[in-house]
């Protein structure tokens, strides 16, 4: 990823949709983004675990981000993608509905999540960013991947 001098302090963020909601994860935390392939379900696993898949020989656990965030389930649709994150040496996938743009964010402009966000959801957001009239919530990746 090439960054020019003047952008050194800007944050690159991949934005994506879960339902109608626009969310973001800084690119530095993302390993890759893949199309949804065959996912093997894991019976008796927690509800937000969709299953496991084979990523070039590695077993990757796939989390339904919508269910995880207590939003609507994000699993159907042709535009669905899986964002692969590195979780302490092991790969974990987040299923999202659609990938939007990669945007550059000035960290100065990030603000804390709004106070009226549901308590159980606010745990999952570090900050929000005003973008084209809407809000992008930046995911607290560690919280999303935590095991309750």
């Amino acid at each position, binding site marked *: 990823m090439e960054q020019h001098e003047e952008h050194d302090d800007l944050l690159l963020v991949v934005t994506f949709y879960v339902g109608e909601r626009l969310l973001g994860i800084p690119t530095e935390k993302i390993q890759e983004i893949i199309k949804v392939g*065959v996912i*093997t*379900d*894991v*019976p*008796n*696993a*927690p509800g937000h*675990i969709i299953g*496991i*898949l*084979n990523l070039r*020989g*590695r*077993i*990757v*656990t796939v*989390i339904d981000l919508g269910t995880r965030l207590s939003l609507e389930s994000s699993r159907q649709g042709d535009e669905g993608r899986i964002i692969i994150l590195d*979780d302490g040496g*092991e*790969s*974990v996938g987040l299923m999202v509905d659609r990938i939007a743009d990669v945007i550059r964010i000035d960290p100065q402009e990030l603000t804390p999540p709004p106070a009226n966000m549901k308590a159980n959801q606010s745990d999952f957001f570090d900050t929000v960013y005003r973008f084209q009239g809407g809000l992008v919530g930046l995911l607290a990746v560690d919280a999303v*991947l935590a*095991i309750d």
Partner: protein
Amino acid sequence: MDILDDEIILGYIEESREHLADIETDLLTIEEQGAEINRELVNKVFRAAHSIKGGAGFLNLTTIKELSHGLENILDMIRNRALVPSREVVTLLLLSFDKLRDMINNYQESNRADISGVVADLAALAGGGGVSPAQADMPPEQPEQGELVIPLPASDSVIRISRPELERATSGGGTPYLLALDLMSDVPRPGVTLPDFIGMLDHCGVVLDGLVALDLTGTLDEEPGEVLPFFVLMVSNLNSQELAAALNICQDKIIPLDESVLPVADPPPPHLQSYSPAEPNFSPSPAFSSPPAGSDPVRQGGVSTAAAPQESGGAATLLPESTLRINVSLLDVLMNLAGELVLSRNQLLQAILRGDQAGLKAAGHRINSVTSELQETIMLTRMQPIGTIFNKFTRVVRDLSRELGKEINLVISGKEVELDKTIIEGLSDPLTHLVRNAVDHGIENPAERRRAGKSGGGTVRLHAYHEAGQVIIEISDDGRGINPDKVSRSALAKGLITAEQLRLMSDKDRRFLIMMPGFSTADQITDISGRGVGMDVVKTNIEKLNGLIDIESEDGRGSLFQIKLPLTLAIIPCLFVETCCRRYAIPQVSVVETIRIGEAQIRDRIQRVGDAEVLLLRGEIIPIIHLKEALGISAADTEGDLNLVIVTNGIMQYGMAVQQLHDSEEIVVKPLGRHVRHLKEYAGATIMGDGQVALILDASGLAHSSGIATISGAARSELKYQEPQRELSGENRALLTFYNGGQQLAVPLELVERVEKISAQAVEYVGGRRVMQYHGQVMPLMEVGDITSAGSLDEERDLVVIVFAFAGREFGLAANTPVDSIDCTTAIDGETLRQQGIVGSVIIQGQTVLIVDIVAAVTSWHPEWFESEPQETMASYSPTISRHRGGGAPTILLAEDSDFFREQVRRIIEEQGYTVVACVDGALAWEALNEHAESIRLVVSDIEMPNLDGLELTRKIRGESRFRELPVITLSSLAGEENVAQGNDAGVTRYLVKLDRDELVEAIADLYPPE
């Protein structure tokens, strides 16, 4: 002082651990041999101490160096017969090596470790008096025989090196050099870290020794860190100018050591004597409370610098399993294979570019064989002998038995058996627990033993061996055994089971209670084994390794703990099953058998006890779970046959109902991610041929989560009384059924090596014969149509190849799916449908299934396989054949209950020209033997037979003096070492595995007594 690099130090630690690994065993052997020392062995231990000392000096681990030096002295004395390795001496050595090991494992803190006691003891032993080497008034130490002392410029320190070591290093024509460097200015320097520099040194020659002269670092009053002299003794083939250039240092820092500088012989020249008092500890350990008299404060400054703990790089904890030593030849093989793989890839790319079908095929075959071989070789690199953990028990048992006042002899066998490194590491704790248990609880004290009429000394045995593709480890003792009453009383008192459950348990069940969590009899908690780690933890640990543990015990006679382990955790054979369109793998180690119950029979064979479903199988009550329900999958019930996989969790068997049974495959186990790892139902995941992921089921975890572990006892006995005595009609044969077009056929399961899926394209025609590439070899392939009048294969349907092995070769039978293994309880009809290539028929679920005569098929299709025997063998027994050919009286007695095998074996023997009398069981064979006592020269017998089995028959034969010399060959499908041992005990002359024609023919030729 951050002069040490992690990598170098890790290398040293690793190497030192290896040196220390066998030392206990070696020392104990040395102790056993007493004054009659084995010089080679003492030398080995000496060298270990010596190498550790050398490295420690280089790395400035002063305390380690000091202790290893002390050890070296004692070992040298033992080597020179100046000291007898008595029990006390060896105990001190063991303690010191323990201390050394501790310090090495915790090297950062080692310089602060208090070793004064041990060092003083060692010194006292060495000097015969109480003089500690650190005391300043110690007499100047004479250099060892043949030792060179090299004075260091402007320093009190010297580098000592043995002359042979130097000679070895210079034998290649190199020159010895002394490098006088400054760690403050010479290295590290921009772009070159110290490790880089040491790497450069290694490239230029052989580094013999190195030390940091702490006496030159200045006093506490001076500015610290102005200068830090670092001396290196090395041998290089470069001249000093070249060396200076290669190391990028000033040439004046390199001092060539020629003969004039090197002290020539011992005793050392007088001018060196003055340096000697500074030895052996150029920096006394801070552990000594009083500073050496007359030493100046300079040294104290040096000490505090030296003692600075190494905390650089955050390498605070070492992971013991992080590195592995691999035989270089194995690496070479890997390199070659990697090269092959690259070549094959190029072939493949070219073929793709050219669109060359034949080339594609060839490249495909090549990649196939290279990858298989690559996989096997890589697996080999992980294999380690189990001796690495067995060895440590010699010490454990020695120390423990001493502590407990017991006489215990530890017998270890099978050290060479290899297991995956991960398994070896995981085994250490459970084995230690079991051995400690055996010593502590198993073996009685001598007085008690004598009262029980046993010898005072007990025996604990550790035995490892291979059986059926698994490794078995047995820990046995000849102690008091596990008393089931005592165990159950205790379990009852702790509320682990109810009296009702207990009433229904067998002795074995009750002994297994010791593995229940929370079980620990009150009088069991001792220092030795009651450390809060119960047998349940042992069991859990072993199950984590995909292993099983079994207990056998006889009151007053001893106990046996048997652990069954897979060879490796990474690749295991698994049976694939399907339920609700999902495929799951069950590790073969937990599969007992698979059973299909026809829809009509389900009512008869499956019963309900309360909520639980159970299967009646050969008089046993087996609880059943439905995989679908156990996994909480909601799907409609399916009608039809019931497919059951009978699995075991080590204690009990249960049936797992699945919708479909698939093939068995070797799979690569992949761990699950941490979000699902807590699910006990799964042992991991694997990637199937089509790239999809399948979960691997854990038989124990599933039993647990379905709650069947608790119903078994009650359900079992309740049903034991209801169970009608099911007579086994005819013989009990395991058959493998398959299809050939629309016709269902079968072959005896014993003959089958493997079954694998193939594609129709895999079959090739070479020289008019059908073959296929199989694991890098060309395997002949036939189909049923080739040998019987049956129809031909349906190539549109899924194809499998059933692999058989004969005469040391493999051949395949192509067949259509579905393939199933069936326990056939009805008699095989060898008459009605007998025809060419068909040995008989059997009724399976109302269908007539023909049994293919595989042996005849191979013999007629590949007669050359059996003709290629060496000529000498033929010649040696052909006279015997001719003499007996056509002779009236039978000369060979054959006992075999299976019609099929009796026919096969009879034919094989008769082909050799002998006359056979064949009997269907041991009792009839015994009658026949008595009848033809005069003419019978050899007995060939099956082992498993009704009325009188093969072993009993053999014992009967051996029991009569007239038959004492009569050779007995047994044929069995049980080929474990245990079985062979049982056979040998009974008096079997030759124990053969069913059914290798060549082996049998050879054995007969061998044993038939020439006239």
